[in-house]
């Protein structure tokens, strides 16, 4: 017999009413997510299984003439009995340890791969759950000359079997009908067979042979797949294909995401201006216009990148390519204790660490996933670009070639730091090596656009509802620290304003005086704010890195997001916030002086600051996402402490080394 599993103590949530709660389960790559989307459409949400980092989707399905369903999409599992997180989650859920026992379970079976999929069916039957078998991708099986007799299969298993093509909706009505009546059935006694794992396999083989027109033979060749695999996993051609495919993906990501991101920024800027016009001057207006609107803008602006990335990755995953790409990258990344799967998060982190960390959900092993999450923010994200441009320009004024090399060196330094850290963590706090790759190579398929759109939508909503709310709160706090307490304008500013009002003064000169007065007021306000005061207090700690209090304020305010560094320095230098690094801004920042009159940015200071921004964890939203994805503060705190510590030590060594070598 298949290992006996006692009937759950808890009865199903409902025995007489129409099915309310159903769980979808199946091997990976069987079209489970497609079926979920076909059932629930947009009435779905993504979250984590309580107490785990494994994501789950729940949805609601309604169709005319059928009972309403609450649908739970379980993680893809091959085997309920092995010691893997997904298997444990699925098994405990079916036993009722994670909420009510489902009224019924739909097991999705790939018609092209019947024997292997039936192993899971056998385990479910042994657990005596009310089961409906969705025999999916029958169209693909038919094209391959493989016919499965659903009637015979239903008779052998004693559970409803529905032939279907979830991608096109074929068989959906029959599935709903089966779900309407399955709650009236009594769970079967389970399949007969030896009580070993191999026994379940033999049982599955026997059933598959009995109901299939042609047993899927190990000897059968799929020449198209074999040739394509030969190219896509080849050490040279596979790498070339990988670079071409991922290059295209990221080009699309960068090119297309910029448009909605710019639109979002412009829209929120307009909203902020409107609020300032409508509300009377005062702290409430500042809070709404700058704190709340600014905070929401700082969160929503990430949405296009996250949605577009998940849309593209889902398309790519649907084709079957990602499994091949994982093997190509595994050759390189495994030397540093990272799995081949890590390539998507690490590449994505070059656009933004947030979607990069969220995409570690592709990595099945927890240790591998945690390592990847911890090192992903070392990759130079797009928010670092203006900082790199500013500091390399300050470092190598009038030598654009060297500035370009330094710019490229920043990317290299970030990537090397990530690999070094992965290796270091692999021998210390996350001991172990990346698991050797064992992956099913799914059939090449045409991707589903609907699937990709729904996944992108789900991931975007998931980001907004979890990390997004925290990020908005953090933005508001950081704004408050930078804006309060309000300090009086300096007398010098009043004197300049009075001088500007002299009747004989030409308009251009008056405007220049007013601008100078405004700059002085902003600089005084910045210095007098909580952030400014903290900068003054902490300046001695950053002095060994060559930073004065102004640079320290820049480091502190950019803790919200790195690009804020440029606007902070431009405010401190000229009294006007600038996000683009043009020649005027660079000239003003280059002209900044310390309290003793020495320049703020010497070559040694600029180099030290550059290294600091490559390595430091200067991004609160990233920490928020790390906390969410790792299920607690521990790894977010480690990420902050380690990256900041590494940045501090590296900048210190560089600055002191340059000073010792005679570079000012």
């Amino acid at each position, binding site marked *: 017999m298949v290992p006996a599993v006692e009937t759950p103590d808890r009865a199903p949530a409902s025995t007489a009413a129409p099915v309310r709660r159903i769980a979808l389960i199946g091997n990976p790559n069987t079209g489970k997510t497609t079926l979920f989307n076909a059932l629930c459409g947009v009435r779905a949400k993504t979250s984590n299984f309580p107490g785990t980092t494994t994501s789950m989707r729940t949805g609601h399905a309604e169709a005319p003439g059928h009972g309403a369903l609450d649908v739970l999409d379980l993680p893809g599992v*091959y085997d309920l009995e092995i*010691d893997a997180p997904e298997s444990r989650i699925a098994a405990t859920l079916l036993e009722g340890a994670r909420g009510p026992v489902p009224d019924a379970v739909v097991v999705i079976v790939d018609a092209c*791969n019947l*024997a*292997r999929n039936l192993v899971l069916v056998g385990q479910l039957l042994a657990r005596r759950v009310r089961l409906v078998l969705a025999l999916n991708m029958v169209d693909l099986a038919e094209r391959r000359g493989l016919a499965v007799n659903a009637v015979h299969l239903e008779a052998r298993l004693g559970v409803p079997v529905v032939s279907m093509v979830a991608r096109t909706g074929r068989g959906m009505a029959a599935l709903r009908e089966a779900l309407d009546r399955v709650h009236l059935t009594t769970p079967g006694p389970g399949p007969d067979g030896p009580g070993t794992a191999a026994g379940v396999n033999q049982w599955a083989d026997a059933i598959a042979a009995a109901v299939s027109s042609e047993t*899927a033979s190990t000897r059968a060749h799929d020449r198209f797949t074999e040739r394509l695999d030969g190219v896509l996993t080849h050490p040279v051609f596979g790498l070339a294909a990988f670079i071409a495919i991922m290059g295209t993906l990221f080009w699309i990501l960068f090119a297309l995401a910029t448009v909605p991101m710019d639109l979002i920024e412009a829209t929120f800027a307009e909203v902020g201006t409107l609020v300032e016009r409508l509300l009377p001057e005062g702290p409430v207006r500042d809070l709404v216009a700058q704190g709340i609107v600014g905070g929401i803008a700082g969160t929503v602006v990430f949405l296009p990148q996250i949605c577009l990335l998940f849309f593209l990755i889902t398309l790519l995953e649907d084709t079957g390519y990602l499994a091949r790409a994982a*093997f190509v990258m595994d050759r390189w990344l495994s030397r540093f204790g990272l799995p081949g799967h890590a390539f998507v998060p690490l590449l994505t982190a070059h656009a933004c660490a947030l979607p990069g960390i969220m995409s570690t959900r592709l990595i099945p092993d927890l240790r591998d996933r945690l390592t990847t999450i911890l090192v992903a923010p070392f990759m130079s994200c797009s928010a670092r670009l203006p900082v790199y441009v500013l500091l390399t320009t300050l470092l190598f004024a009038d030598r654009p070639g060297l500035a370009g090399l330094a710019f490229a060196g920043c990317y290299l330094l970030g990537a090397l730091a990530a690999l070094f850290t992965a290796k270091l963590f692999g021998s210390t706090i996350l001991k172990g090596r990346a698991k050797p790759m*064992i*992956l099913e190579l799914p059939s090449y398929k045409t991707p589903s656009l609907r699937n990709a759109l729904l996944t992108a939508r789900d991931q975007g909503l998931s980001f907004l509802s979890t990390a997004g709310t925290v990020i908005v709160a953090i933005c508001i706090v950081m704004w408050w620290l930078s804006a309060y307490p309000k300090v009086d304008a300096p007398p010098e500013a009043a004197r300049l304003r009075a001088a500007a009002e002299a009747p004989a003064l030409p308009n251009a000169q008056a405007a220049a005086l007013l601008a100078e007065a405004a700059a002085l007021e902003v600089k005084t306000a910045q210095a007098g704010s909580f952030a400014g005061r903290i900068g003054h207090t902490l300046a001695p700690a950053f002095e060994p890195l060559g930073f004065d209090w102004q640079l320290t304020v820049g480091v502190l305010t950019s803790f919200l997001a790195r690009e804020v560094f440029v606007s902070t320095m431009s405010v401190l230098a000229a009294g006007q916030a600038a996000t683009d690094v043009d020649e005027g801004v660079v000239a003003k920042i280059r002209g900044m002086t310390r309290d003793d009159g020495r320049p703020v940015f010497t070559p040694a200071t600029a180099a030290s600051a550059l290294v600091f921004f490559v390595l430091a964890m200067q991004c609160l939203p990233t920490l928020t996402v790390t906390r969410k994805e790792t299920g607690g503060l521990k790894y977010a705190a480690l990420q902050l402490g380690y990256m900041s510590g590494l940045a501090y030590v590296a900048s210190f060594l560089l600055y002191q080394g340059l000073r010792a070598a005679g570079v000012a």
Partner: protein
Amino acid sequence: MTPPVTIDALPRPAAAAVPLTTMPVGAVATLHEVTDVASRPVLRSLGLTDDCVLRLCQAGDPCIVQVRATRIGLSSAVARCLYVVPEAGSR
């Protein structure tokens, strides 16, 4: 964390069994033993059970085998731990 398993520390496979990596591409064989204990559950869940029939589709890294209709990619480290008995006259 499962400690790494060295091949030397494990029981010797039967005399007729050979490492999967020594087989020619296209050859059909029966799986005899997996000496990497840590990989056994995952391999088993993918259908690579004792005495299953497999075909070597691609050698190297990754090594690709086919069991029934399932194509499975194995890193060379895992492939080296699979011992198989080749079918007579198989290629």
